[in-house]
């Protein structure tokens, strides 16, 4: 781990000395022929490689959508697996173009890292998982428990805040990667495993007997997860931001990867604007007129992406809940494309 951090830091120092803020990310990406995308080292539903090395997940699909919008080819993505503590350095040093790695949007990360969040791909919250045999039904019964957590996350700070606010003692054991954390929890080193609730469900699937473990009802924090890009390139910031908005807008308009060709033929003014037969929004972004069509054909709309990776169509089977569209009782809301 240390070596990776060190290498990245040196790269960061070298990169910073070699060139000022390079504002040409889109050009660099086109020249390279690839979007370089920072993802996790394996979190089912968000970004994890299968046994053939193909990456899947919500965070992965965001990157595929960007590649789709630029190259009309979802395979033109280079995925860079990063640990929680190496991720920002990799973005700062220019090793990746976009960090799409279940990263919580906080003010300190938005303002002090030289990077910006482009939106929220998944509204999450931190929860706790315990063994059923402990007979614990609430996080408030966890006094004096040992807690396994991945280091370098907001989780670690929320944990400290929560136990302090509730006047409970605990012991924290922090590991560098998600897999090590889960392994230690399974080996019995700690009573509790804590991370974002979606991550708890995802990691529960990795355990030998998932049914012996339960997720406690408490959610102790707000964890809006979203992609990040470097400061200093507003065009690239817009592209990443509007890729997600395009996926949300498509869902709102009922456009899916299956019916998009029929929808494109309709004489609906809003559909014509969004799907590019009217106006030139795509070109203003530095993309093509049919950018939304490309994105939806590549990965589908937001609802499809959600269902396929974490929702009803996936082993995780997480409810849409707050991640539903704003007009269906959720928080997902895209500004209009007009």
């Amino acid at each position: 781990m240390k070596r990776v951090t060190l290498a990245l830091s040196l790269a960061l120092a070298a990169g910073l000395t070699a060139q000022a803020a390079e504002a040409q990310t889109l050009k660099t990406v086109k020249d390279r022929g690839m979007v370089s995308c920072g993802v996790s080292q394996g979190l089912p539903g968000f970004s994890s490689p299968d046994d053939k090395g193909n990456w899947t997940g919500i965070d992965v699909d965001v990157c595929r959508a960007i590649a789709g919008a630029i190259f009309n080819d979802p395979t033109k993505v280079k995925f860079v697996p990063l640990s929680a503590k190496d991720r920002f350095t990799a973005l700062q040093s220019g090793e990746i173009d976009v960090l799409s790695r279940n990263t919580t949007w906080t003010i300190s990360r938005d303002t002090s890292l030289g990077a910006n969040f482009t939106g929220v791909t998944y509204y999450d919250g931190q929860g706790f998982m315990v063994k059923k045999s402990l007979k614990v039904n609430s996080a408030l019964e966890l006094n004096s428990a040992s807690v396994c957590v991945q280091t370098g996350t907001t989780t670690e700070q929320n944990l400290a805040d929560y136990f302090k606010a509730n006047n409970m003692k605990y012991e924290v054991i922090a590991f560098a990667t998600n897999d090590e954390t889960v392994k230690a929890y399974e080996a019995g080193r700690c009573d509790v495993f804590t991370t974002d609730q979606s991550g708890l469900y995802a990691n529960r699937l990795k355990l030998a007997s998932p049914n012996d473990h339960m997720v406690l009802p408490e959610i102790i924090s707000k964890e809006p997860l979203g992609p990040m890009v470097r400061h200093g390139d507003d065009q690239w910031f817009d592209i990443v931001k509007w890729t997600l908005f395009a996926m949300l807008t498509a869902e709102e308009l009922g456009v899916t990867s299956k019916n998009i060709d029929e929808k494109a033929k309709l004489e609906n003014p809003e559909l014509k604007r969004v799907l590019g037969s009217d106006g030139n929004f795509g070109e203003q972004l530095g993309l093509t007129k049919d950018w939304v069509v490309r994105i939806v054909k590549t990965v589908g709309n937001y609802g499809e992406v959600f269902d396929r990776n974490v929702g009803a169509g996936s082993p995780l089977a997480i409810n849409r809940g707050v991640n539903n569209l704003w007009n269906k009782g959720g928080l997902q809301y895209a500004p209009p494309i007009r």
Partner: protein
Amino acid sequence: MSTEARKPPPQIALKIRRILGGKAGWNGVAVQFAFAAILGWIGYEIVSNARANLENQHIAAGFGFLRNNAGFDVNQTLISYTGSDTFLRVFVVGLLNTLVVSVVGIVFATVIGFIVALCRLSPNWLLSRVGEIYVEVIRNLPLLFQILFWYLAVLAALPNPRQSISLFGIAFISNRGLVIPSPIGQSGLAPFLAVLALGIVASLALRVYARRALFQRGQVIRIWPSVLALLFGLPLATMLVFGLPFTFELPQLRGFNFAGGSRIIPEFVALTVALATYTAAFIAEIVRAGILSVHKGQMEAGSSLGLSRGATLRLIVVPQAMRVIVPPLTNQYLNLTKNSSLAVAIGYPDLVSVFAGTSLSQTGQAIEIIAMTMGVYLLISLLTSAIMSVYGWRVSRSLGA
């Protein structure tokens, strides 16, 4: 009438020329200055450029973050620490954790290393094979793998706290670590410690006196009964007068875990065992080489004087071998200290884990934090080297070399 030779006039300019310029004379001096200037300029450019660019991209820079609240907890702290302490304190906590695992590891590695080396050199066939197998197996397996092995082996073998193994009802072993009673100082503590310190100093003085008597007058003084009395009898007597120096707080199972008592976490045990056994394999070979480098005649001379094998080794061979052993032994100590940064793999909160890991990603100030961490490792290593150099110098001096 003075016949002293006149001192030659000071030739500072010549000296400078010789030191800096060597054979190239004044040209060499100019080249050296130009080279130093270029190096300085490059360094300045790197720093100022990085600073300007960090500012351009609005990446926080500088060491101000050290005063901010850390907001996360650490599970082994040698000084008091809570989540509301500063990053500077996290740095100290991590540093102490690194130092404690290094020091304990070095002590055990040295002891195990010497024992294994003596095993390998032993005329006993079985012992020497055991030593050889130990060295070949341990030094040929990657260290990270060994750390994980010890950690997972230790964890898997131990029960959870509710079924912990009780040692006479006062200490408990579980997968949360070893819980032992912790001493709580009482009124008798101060006189007890004072008398103990006095006993140790007096014993050392006695030893020096006895050695001097042996070397200068050939007089053998038996000191162990007096040492025993000084180290144990005197403190015991103080206890009778002033009362118990401390009482013990017994650990009790409460809820998920033990309350009270002190705890040694399994991460520390696994890391120490792995580092000590791994480094010991290398130390064993160094010690063996050192001992073999002492001429066989020395051993024979020892036995012809009627000394036992052990006494010959201790009094004649090892002191001469130390001269060869110390420099490579220093390397191993440095390696052990640096290897302790692998702690992050098993969640032991060392400097790299809590400072270059957690603190780095909480603050995002990679350059400052990595620089500080590298500086600390450099400092620890230089200090270790310095101590070992002094020791090596003393060994050489006492051998009259």
